[in-house]
């Protein structure tokens, strides 16, 4: 019996055969690998695997403990659900990218050292960017480039932090930095690492990449994206920065930030994306509080969040898939033709809103209760207010304008069966976790002494949620979606890039012209003279050799030109292939 099979390798090496499989064999294979990965995670024992040395540093390919097992469990379950949802796709590229993306996320979750972590971190950025590129069209490709640029910048900050931290600490092993009792003593490297992590967790003002790119991704790609990038960031924060005071306040602000933007949003998946920001806020705050109960709360909330958020994205994706529309101002009246989608979506909506007997109820409340125990009244109030806003948007506004509301007489039907099955699996998890929280609580990193089902908790939650509904009913007109987009912090690089281009075109171009004028009148005659002398030498001796060389380059260039298709997705695919190759080499050499 093999003690430990790295699920990341299962996905990443498992991605290689996908393009060569066809039809039902491919479909079986796409479901089989995540199923095997779930089995591998369930079978694994805590411990350290794949230790070695690289450029004089300790490398630990996989460190398994309770925290990593919780995240790996939900990641592999989510991979299975996501693959079922995407089964009808014929393009292999998206499946390959999804596999590499999931594999990289699992690689981060098990990484025992910063170099391994960094490698998989970047793998995630490239693979997930492909899921946006694959949507095609100018908007998606532009959004994907912005997404990639932001993540690469974050990656550079992370790498810089890793190098500085490694030099200062003398070890690259991945563990707690500076937080807790040592708060305030963190070095520059620690802050850079924190910045890299916060970027992936979409903490404002570093949140705009998420709400910019996710709604532009493919229907199935967005489901994967909603699950992995931010939650791996939550995991690494929980690992490295528990008890960091800054995170409490960032988390509380973030929870409200997402909710406020969600009021303004008209694009259905962008609204849901703002709720990722809001929900991750609970997790970030929980990690910042840092008590056992708070970290448990953050971890369990990440677990529940991945499943209900995926369900919500799958529901909105189903609507986009059958109607081709994404704006709330253009949707409405679909409940007659898509009742199953409505029902499944609402299960996710009740779960995210933390209704009793749905998953959010047993996880979100743990974070809020931990804040209460830690005597943080303001945080409790902020997070409770965000809960009200969550129900207002994902539970009331979005379904009302998408499925009910004005009947736009859209031609619609239920989505393909595999999509409904995937949504069904996620919905079952949302309810089962809510009704029987004990198995999830048993998985958590610390022992759980929290009872969600008390009389007060149930009536208070219902009061909060149903009176939010009353507000919605009374002020429905004020919530009517408007045909606008909202300015977020991406304004700085979307408009800022334009200012830079203007600078490049106007003043810099003028400067360059002035310089070239000088060279025309002064430098050129001198150069001409020298060149003529050189030509004489050249013609006689060097030419023959160069001609032969040039011909070789010409032929080679012709061959290369055929590789250069100019199709962005091909380049992205090549990048992913490169990442796979690098990881394969990595796995073989350092085992």
């Amino acid at each position: 019996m093999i003690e430990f099979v790295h699920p990341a390798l299962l996905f990443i090496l498992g991605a290689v055969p996908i393009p060569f499989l066809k039809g039902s064999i491919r479909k079986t294979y796409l479901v089989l690998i995540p199923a095997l990965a779930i089995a591998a995670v369930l079978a694994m024992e805590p411990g350290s695997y794949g230790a070695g040395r690289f450029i004089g540093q300790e490398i630990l390919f996989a460190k398994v403990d309770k925290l990593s097992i919780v995240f790996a469990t939900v990641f592999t379950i989510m991979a299975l659900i996501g693959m079922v949802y995407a089964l009808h796709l014929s393009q292999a590229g998206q499946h390959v990218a999804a596999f590499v993306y999931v594999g990289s996320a699992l690689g981060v979750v098990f990484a025992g050292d910063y170099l391994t972590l960094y490698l998989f971190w970047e793998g995630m950025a490239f693979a997930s960017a492909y899921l946006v590129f694959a949507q095609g069209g100018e908007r998606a490709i532009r959004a994907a480039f912005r997404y990639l640029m932001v993540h690469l910048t974050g990656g550079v900050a992370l790498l810089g932090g890793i190098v500085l931290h490694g030099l200062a600490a003398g070890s690259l092993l991945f563990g707690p930095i500076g937080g807790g009792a040592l708060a305030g003593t963190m070095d520059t490297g620690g802050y850079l690492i924190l910045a890299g992590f916060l970027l992936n967790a979409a903490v404002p003002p570093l949140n705009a990449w998420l709400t910019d790119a996710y709604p532009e991704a493919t229907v199935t790609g967005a489901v994967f994206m909603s699950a992995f990038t931010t939650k791996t960031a939550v995991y690494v924060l929980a690992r490295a920065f528990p008890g960091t005071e800054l995170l409490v306040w960032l988390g509380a602000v973030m929870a409200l930030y997402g909710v406020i933007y969600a009021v303004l949003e008209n694009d259905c998946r962008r609204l849901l994306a703002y709720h990722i920001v809001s929900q991750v806020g609970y997790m970030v705050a929980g990690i910042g509080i840092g008590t056992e109960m708070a970290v448990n709360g953050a971890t369990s909330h990440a677990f529940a969040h991945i499943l209900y958020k995926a369900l919500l994205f799958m529901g909105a994706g189903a609507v986009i898939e059958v109607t081709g529309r994404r704006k709330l101002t253009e949707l409405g009246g679909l409940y007659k033709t898509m009742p199953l989608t409505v029902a499944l979506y609402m299960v996710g909506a009740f779960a995210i809103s933390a209704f009793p007997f749905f998953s959010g109820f047993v996880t979100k409340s743990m974070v809020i209760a931990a804040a209460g125990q830690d005597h943080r009244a303001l945080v409790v109030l902020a997070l409770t207010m965000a809960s009200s806003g969550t129900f207002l948007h994902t539970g009331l506004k979005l379904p009302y304008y998408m499925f009910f509301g004005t009947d736009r007489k859209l031609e619609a039907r239920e989505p393909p069966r595999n999509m409904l099955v995937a949504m069904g699996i996620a919905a079952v998890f949302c309810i089962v976790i809510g009704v029987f929280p004990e198995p999830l609580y048993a998985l958590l990193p610390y022992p759980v002494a929290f009872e969600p089902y008390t009389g007060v908790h149930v009536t208070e939650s219902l009061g909060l949620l149903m009176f939010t509904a009353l507000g919605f009913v009374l002020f429905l007109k004020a919530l009517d979606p408007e045909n606008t987009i909202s300015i977020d912090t991406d304004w700085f690089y979307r408009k800022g890039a334009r200012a830079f281009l203007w600078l490049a075109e106007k003043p810099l171009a003028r400067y360059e012209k002035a310089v070239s004028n000088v060279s025309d009148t002064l430098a050129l005659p001198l150069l001409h003279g020298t060149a003529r002398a050189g030509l004489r030498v050249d013609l006689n001796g060097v030419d023959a050799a160069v001609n032969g060389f040039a011909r070789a380059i010409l032929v080679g260039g012709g061959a290369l030109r055929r590789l250069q298709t100019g199709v962005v997705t091909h380049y992205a695919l090549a990048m992913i292939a490169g990442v796979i190759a690098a990881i394969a080499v990595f796995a073989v050499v350092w085992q």
Partner: protein
Amino acid sequence: MIKRLVDFFGDEGYARSRRRLFYIVLALIVVADFLVPREHAEYLWDRLPGWSAVYGFGSCLLLIFVSKFLGHQGGLMRREDYYD
């Protein structure tokens, strides 16, 4: 069954019974909130029955109007071709 449940929330014909059900549920929740035992009240509001209903309603209004204010007066909401 699911279709009938969804239709109940969508069809215009059920509007009256829907509204009645909604207000009954609201009243029941407030009544229940007065009846449940409150053992360890950490904060002032933990001791107030009906607090969460008021807070939920208030939060909802606050979020709607603050956001819309920021969107319209604060200039966050722009035309869709703003970046083009």
